[in-house]
């Protein structure tokens, strides 16, 4: 009927691209992380673990780890709590719910650069909408993106606004997959509604919560674009995420060795999380009402 080679020929193009642009680069990164190289010279001398020593003893690296961890620890639970609450209201397939779902989902497919630009304008010190609104109430200007105490919160807000709709849509799919009767949790009379939400809805969507929790943390550790456009990691490193530091070390300082060492360290952390996710989600999570 067909040659034994057929399946191999069909998968060859995809596998070739995956090999060249995904798997080989992992090995290349590991190799380069043990060398000293500025991209310009021909020689790439082997320096052992020197790059790792330099990275792991640099304040900048630990600052970016800390900033990224704070970002993840605040933005992920915030998004998930908002999303599960909103999803339980929007789970029915009626027109208002669907429209609102669409509105909430839209930012998650919209250009991150454009969103970052728009929020830079909202939070601009002069002529920004937020400060203009404060001025109406006689409040002073706030230096949202220039104040190290505030800039990270603005980044968290932008990320939440952008990603919330995705979480909601996943929660709705999770709720609908459980049981059609549950959509009507929202129809229960006032006082009982929160009880149903806490005792029935939340435990039943636990698998979805685990899924979102892990992928959101992984994604939070790779945040780059919002920060690059809005603050470039500033002020004074207050929003400097790990990938922003990686980009700076690799592509503006051209320290390929240290850049690769940062990439490998982040890779190990994220693969660890991904394996944890596969283990936890691979097992059936028990429902407890």
């Amino acid at each position: 009927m067909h040659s034994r080679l057929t399946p191999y020929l069909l998968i060859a193009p995809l596998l070739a691209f995956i090999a060249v642009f995904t798997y080989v680069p992992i090995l290349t990164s590991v190799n380069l992380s043990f060398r000293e190289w500025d991209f310009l010279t021909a020689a790439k001398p082997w320096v052992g673990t020197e790059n790792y020593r330099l990275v792991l003893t640099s304040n900048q690296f630990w600052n970016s780890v800390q900033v990224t961890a704070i970002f993840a620890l605040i933005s992920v639970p915030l998004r998930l709590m908002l999303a599960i609450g909103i999803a339980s209201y929007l789970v029915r397939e009626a027109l208002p719910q669907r429209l609102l779902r669409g509105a909430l989902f839209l930012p998650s497919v919209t250009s991150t650069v454009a969103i970052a630009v728009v929020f830079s304008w909202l939070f601009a010190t002069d002529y920004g909408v937020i400060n203009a609104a404060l001025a109406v109430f006689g409040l002073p200007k706030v230096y949202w993106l220039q104040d190290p105490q505030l800039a990270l919160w603005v980044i968290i807000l932008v990320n939440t606004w952008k990603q919330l709709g995705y979480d909601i849509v996943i929660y709705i799919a999770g709720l609908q997959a459980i049981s059609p009767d549950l959509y009507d949790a929202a129809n229960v009379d006032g006082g009982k509604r929160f009880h149903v939400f806490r005792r029935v809805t939340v435990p039943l969507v636990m698998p979805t919560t685990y899924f979102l929790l892990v992928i959101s943390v992984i994604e939070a550790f790779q945040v780059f674009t919002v920060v690059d456009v809005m603050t470039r990691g500033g002020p004074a490193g207050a929003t400097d995420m790990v990938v922003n530091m990686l980009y700076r070390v690799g592509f503006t300082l051209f320290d390929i060795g240290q850049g690769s060492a940062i990439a490998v360290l982040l890779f190990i952390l994220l693969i660890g999380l991904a394996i944890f996710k596969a283990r936890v989600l691979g097992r059936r999570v028990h429902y407890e009402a």
Partner: protein
Amino acid sequence: MKRETLWPWAALVAGLIFLSPVLYTIWMSFLTVDSYYAGDPVLTLENYRVAFGEFDFLRYLLNSLFVSGVVTLGGLALAVMAAFAFARFDFPGGDFLFAAVVATLMIPSHITLIPNYLTLANIGLLDTYAGLILPAISNGFAAFFLRQYIRGIPRALDEAAYMDGARPLQVLWRVIVPIARPAILSMGLYIFITEWNNYIWPLVAISDSDLYTLQIGLAKLYRENPGEDVINWPLVMAASTITILPILIGFLAVERHLVRGITMGAVK
């Protein structure tokens, strides 16, 4: 009863408030810069003329359309062929190779940044369309998703076609692809949007402004602060609107396909 009639209005208002930054961006893009700062709106298309003309956004728009289009078509072609092989053929090493494809879903892309830059530099593809397209073309998620979908199509349909003397590629093209169209469309949208919004790779791979995509063009325009003493926000907003609008229009047309593609990947 009363609450039921209130719901649509409350939902509409909530949606508009949530999207107000985007809506206001579009509104602002039609204001003259003087009237924006004076707070007395005067409408104009001038910002779009300047953005498309002097600031080259027409070129960036075409670059984005071309790059995202080729990545989508190429990505779908590779994924559909591989998905068909994994769904329909039993072959030595098949399980292992499928696992290797699925594992790419777990691999964070930042690890490939420096090596892919070096690879493209070695073969002289930095600052080319090929350099933007090639690293983005393999899509493990699309291959995985389509394989699951194809497995749900009855094998009897393939067998009938083989009986009539069709070859595997003909079976794929005439039997599988037409049936799997909704799934292929969902994946196509997903790939297109992901590539359209891609920022870090073009930032690394492109320095020639003739090859900028919209994302890079917009970030540069915003940074270089066009305008005399004050930022020309209306111009920046016109550029932002140009960057958002194609996806916005597509979104309104095919939201359901998109949501299905995204949720089917997440909820087993």
